């Protein structure tokens, strides 16, 4: 059976070149980079190179990069660590309603520790209005955390504009750039932020390797106390193989980015145009222009996302959904609800994360197998039969 992986927002595969670079650090170059003997020298040098590669991808200085274990850890460290280091100045944090749970729940943890947070809304395309951020900033605000792009609807946020406000107000600005780094140009100086999260498995590196960039001179309280790894800001023996792999993936992403973006955008636009043409009552979610190159998301009306996902899986197609039934917490996507979509529409969420290997033929296969699945589920949907009866009546 044909297999088509279209869930690259969950994770990308590891490129063969990346795996090749990693292997020595899982075999003969096993040493601990903190050690002063030659077993330590090799991984230490490899980490230095990876730090330069990551810094090169985002226009940063290598010494500003802190390696972490995941985008989630980077976001936790940024939100909690920056807020706690600034708490003498104030105890108020601003986030958007569509942040990843690693940011939202970090803000909630801060709340339990005596901080307050405000949540700025988004419009129906998932865009944060910089003016809303300006209004949310108070005298005691110390940190704003707004994502660079949302992984569920692909919308890219106006980070530069928001950074103008935070600079003016003297408030730190962190951006969760996990969905964007390695996929579209990300330059910390151009964005004007103070901290930025990224994750290797979003750009063909391995899982378990990620980073937080913090502008030089910015104080942060570590989440993990221990040794002096990462300049004392993130203790723990380093995931050398993962970090090396992420470094290689970063270098490849930097070099190949224009070609990748061009290819992905074409295949994505084909899917976004053709799917609603093949299936009636489909809503494209997210922004039409300010959108991640490989990202296409929809809500298929009258049916539920998990059942579509499972039937697509039976046809060899891997996608995801923001429906309540798909989430382990059994709650519909907070992103789609924040964009004003009603629950019954949000339940029909279907999300395609295209990868650099996907072709137009892959999309043609989806366009062949999905319409009968939708038709079959609609034929058994009470919402669809109600809709048909109402239309006949009207």
């Amino acid at each position: 059976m044909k297999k088509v992986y279209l869930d690259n927002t969950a994770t990308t595969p590891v490129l063969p070149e990346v795996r090749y670079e990693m292997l020595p650090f899982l075999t003969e170059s096993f040493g601990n980079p903190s050690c002063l003997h030659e077993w330590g020298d090799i991984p230490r040098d490899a980490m230095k190179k990876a730090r330069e590669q990551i810094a090169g991808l985002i226009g940063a200085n290598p010494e500003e990069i802190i390696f972490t274990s995941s985008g989630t850890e980077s976001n936790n460290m940024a939100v909690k660590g920056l807020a706690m280091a600034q708490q003498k100045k104030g105890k108020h944090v601003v986030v958007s309603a569509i942040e990843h749970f690693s940011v939202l729940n970090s803000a909630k943890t801060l709340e339990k520790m005596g901080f307050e947070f405000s949540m700025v809304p988004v419009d129906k395309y998932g865009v944060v209005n910089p003016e809303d951020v300006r209004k949310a900033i108070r005298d005691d605000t110390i940190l704003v955390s707004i994502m660079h792009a949302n992984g569920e609807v692909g919308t890219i946020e106006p980070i530069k504009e928001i950074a103008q406000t935070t600079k003016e107000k003297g408030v730190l600005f962190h951006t969760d750039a996990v969905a964007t780094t390695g996929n579209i140009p990300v330059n910390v100086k151009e964005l004007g932020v103070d901290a930025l999260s990224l994750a290797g498995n979003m750009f063909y590196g391995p899982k378990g390797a990620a980073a937080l960039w913090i502008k030089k001179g910015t104080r942060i309280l570590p989440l993990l106390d221990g040794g002096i790894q990462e300049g004392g800001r993130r203790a723990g023996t380093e995931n050398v193989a993962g970090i090396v792999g992420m470094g290689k993936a970063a270098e490849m992403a930097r070099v190949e980015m224009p070609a990748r973006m061009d290819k992905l955008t074409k295949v994505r636009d084909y899917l976004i145009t053709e799917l609603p043409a093949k299936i009636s009552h489909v809503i494209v979610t997210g922004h039409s222009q300010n959108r991640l190159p490989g990202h296409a998301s929809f809500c298929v009306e009258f049916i539920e996302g998990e059942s579509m996902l499972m039937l697509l899986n039976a046809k060899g197609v891997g996608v995801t959904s923001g429906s309540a039934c798909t989430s382990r917490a059994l709650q519909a996507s907070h992103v789609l609800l924040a964009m004003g979509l009603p629950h019954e529409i949000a339940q029909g969420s279907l999300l395609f994360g295209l990868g650099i290997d996907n072709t137009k033929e892959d999309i043609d296969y989806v366009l062949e197998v999905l319409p009968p699945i939708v038709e079959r589920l609609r034929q058994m949907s009470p919402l669809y039969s109600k809709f048909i009866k109402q239309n006949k009546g009207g």
Partner: protein
Amino acid sequence: MPIYSEKVMDHFTNPRNVGEIENADGIGEVGNPVCGDMMTFYIKVKDNRLEDVKYKTFGCGAAIAVSSMVSELAKGKTLEEAMTITPKSVAEELQGLPQNKFHCSNLGAQALHKAIEDYQSKQKVGGQVNG
């Protein structure tokens, strides 16, 4: 391991008795799109037995499999027998459901019972009119 048992996948991919019954003797509707699942059961009753059971379901794979299994278990049973079908027995017949799906998706028995109660309340009203 896939999240669903083979039996769930079988009933989900080949659901039995899908549809509506014209002039059904009883209709039972449960759930709402907020929680994710909605089911409407239709029954035809003859001589105190469920002559036909059909349903329409909006929901996940588990919800669809549950509806299918309930329809299969209920068909041909007396009303009293059908009232003894429980979420637990449905889940057992399906070789288990994922733990987090047990409550939200396992609404089939409730929808069937509602349809039977709907039939019984119509009978009472009908009886009074006739009497």
